[in-house]
């Protein structure tokens, strides 16, 4: 069989696996809904929901049936992007319309923060090379700093900006409207840049990425085949770059779920109108369809990214398809 055919089959098989995972994960989410104590409908509807809305919810979430057929009915709607209507957050609007643009911003923010983090990690790894005693004096304390959860970093960040703005503005008699100083820039990219920096610095993301990139890079530089490439007088750059693609990509894919967790709280601290912020606001107001819709979107994203990584790996690494993963 040709390599292309084998690749296509492997990709199809992976895609089927991904779909199966999505079904399984949504089932877990659905079962979590059904596990609410007492009457599920009371657990998931906000205070004072009118009876007709409750009835609609009952039907939408299949609460009037047994868990299995209820799940099938709910899944069928969800797979076509119908997560019902928002209750409180944006009453009456279809969940997808409320959630998608916000989630897109979240995805863009997370993905680009992670790309920036990746580039920084590569640069730092190239610059620093093999770990040395002197470097450890520096990286030791840095390690402590980067153990900070991203929202702690965000709080500190906001406070500093706050102080800075105060120093400028109080003289003119202007006091910022709230503790949150970046409201003034809602139309600009500035808060997004700050949030991105917070994501990079928080949750040990950069340090973790840097350590693994450096370890991979150094292992590769010391690999025997690189010595052989050097010994024949060829340039090692191409060989090293090609062999770094997969570790970098896997590292990226493995960290995206972590960032998608961190971004929820970072968006909240910076009051960015993203999926995480919407999730928390909807959760606070018990706008249940919105929370569920977002949970499914987050899950689907993780599955999609893993799927994509698998396929790229099969394209880059000839050993993958051969072993029929």
């Amino acid at each position, binding site marked *: 069989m040709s390599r292309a055919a084998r690749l296509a089959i492997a990709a199809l098989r992976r895609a089927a696996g991904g779909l199966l995972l999505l079904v399984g994960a949504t089932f877990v989410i659905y079962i979590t809904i059904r596990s609410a104590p007492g009457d599920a409908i009371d657990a998931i509807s906000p205070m004072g929901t009118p009876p007709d809305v409750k009835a609609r919810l009952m039907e939408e979430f299949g609460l009037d049936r047994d868990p299995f057929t209820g799940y099938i009915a709910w899944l069928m709607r969800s797979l076509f992007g119908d997560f019902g209507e928002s209750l409180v957050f944006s009453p009456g609007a279809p969940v997808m319309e409320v959630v998608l643009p916000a989630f897109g911003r979240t995805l863009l923010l997370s993905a680009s923060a992670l790309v920036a983090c990746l580039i920084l990690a590569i640069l730092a790894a190239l610059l620093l*090379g093999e770990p040395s005693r002197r470097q450890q004096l520096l990286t030791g304390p840095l390690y402590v700093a980067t153990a900070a959860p991203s929202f702690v970093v965000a709080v500190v960040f906001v406070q500093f900006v706050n102080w800075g703005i105060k120093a400028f503005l109080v003289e003119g008699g202007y006091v910022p409207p709230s503790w949150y100083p970046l409201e003034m820039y809602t139309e600009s990219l500035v808060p997004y840049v700050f949030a991105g920096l917070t994501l990079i610095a928080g949750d040990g993301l950069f340090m973790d990425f840097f350590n693994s990139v450096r370890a991979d890079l150094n292992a590769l530089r*010391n*690999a*025997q*085949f690189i*010595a*052989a*490439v*050097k*010994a*024949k*007088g*060829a340039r090692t750059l191409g*060989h090293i770059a*090609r*062999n770094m693609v997969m570790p970098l990509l896997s590292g990226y894919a493995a960290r995206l779920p972590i960032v998608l967790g961190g971004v929820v709280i970072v968006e909240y601290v910076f009051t960015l109108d993203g999926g995480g912020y919407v999730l928390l606001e909807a959760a606070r107001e018990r706008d249940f369809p919105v929370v569920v819709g977002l949970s499914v979107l987050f899950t689907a994203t993780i599955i999609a990214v893993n799927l994509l990584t698998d396929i790229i790996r099969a394209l*880059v*690494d*000839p*050993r993958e398809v*051969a072993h029929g993963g």
Partner: protein
Amino acid sequence: MSPLLSVEDLVIEFDTARGRRRVVDRVSFDLAPGEVLGILGESGSGKTMTTMAVLGLVAGEPGVMGGSITLRDGDDEIGLLSDLEQVISRKGKRVSKNCRKWRRMVHARMRPLWGRMMTAVFQNPRHSLDPLMTVGAQVEESIALALPDLTAAQRGEKAVDWLDRVQMNEPGRVHGSYPHELSGGMCQRAMIAVALARRPKLLIADEPTTGLDTTVRAEIVELFRALLEEERRSMMYISHDIREVLYLADRVIVMKGGRVVETETAENLRLGRGQRADYTAMLLSAADLPSGAAA
């Protein structure tokens, strides 16, 4: 004839948990053009480190700490370690070395020499080839460096030709294969093709048969023999198997614990002429060869 390569008083040391350890201790030898030098010694005796020093590829710190290595490139004499003293500083008993600077200096010096003057085939063939490139592409990379004027099609032909010359069955198929699709012996043949296609003046073969099955080992040794008969070339052949070394080499040095304990022609060793160092005598008798009179 003046030697192609001469190594004098080479010292290599490494920092370990138990302090600094000297793994190559004042090793000296010469290699004449067209000569096959065998280096024999048990595991850990410093054979690989000696050859890595010649190649400028010692990994680990502080690495090369003394001695001189001279290569003769036509009429030029190149001292590979001539700047070594510049990066070594002595404070009382403490001797330290600026390894980063040294690595940069070595790279700058070796870049024009790697491949053209010498290249290497390493032990463990499975890790010697880039796993993400076809074998053919790797042979072609060598050919492109040796003969930059060839067209892509000519390079492809030449690569298949080289794979054929290292006695690969089905060279055409192997050309498009990835290393993981080949057996260990095939990988080693491919590696030899990659090295020879580069047309080096000196080929360094560091235990090219270690890690292979006995029958495959014999095949690889035969391949080297055939290649040498086809075209006389300078070579360092490292092994811990005395039979292999005696079969291929003109002259042999025997190493133990980082030192050279014996330098002798292969013929004298084969025939059991002359006085032998204890260790060499033991190796010879273990291989059922006439061991000569122990000194």
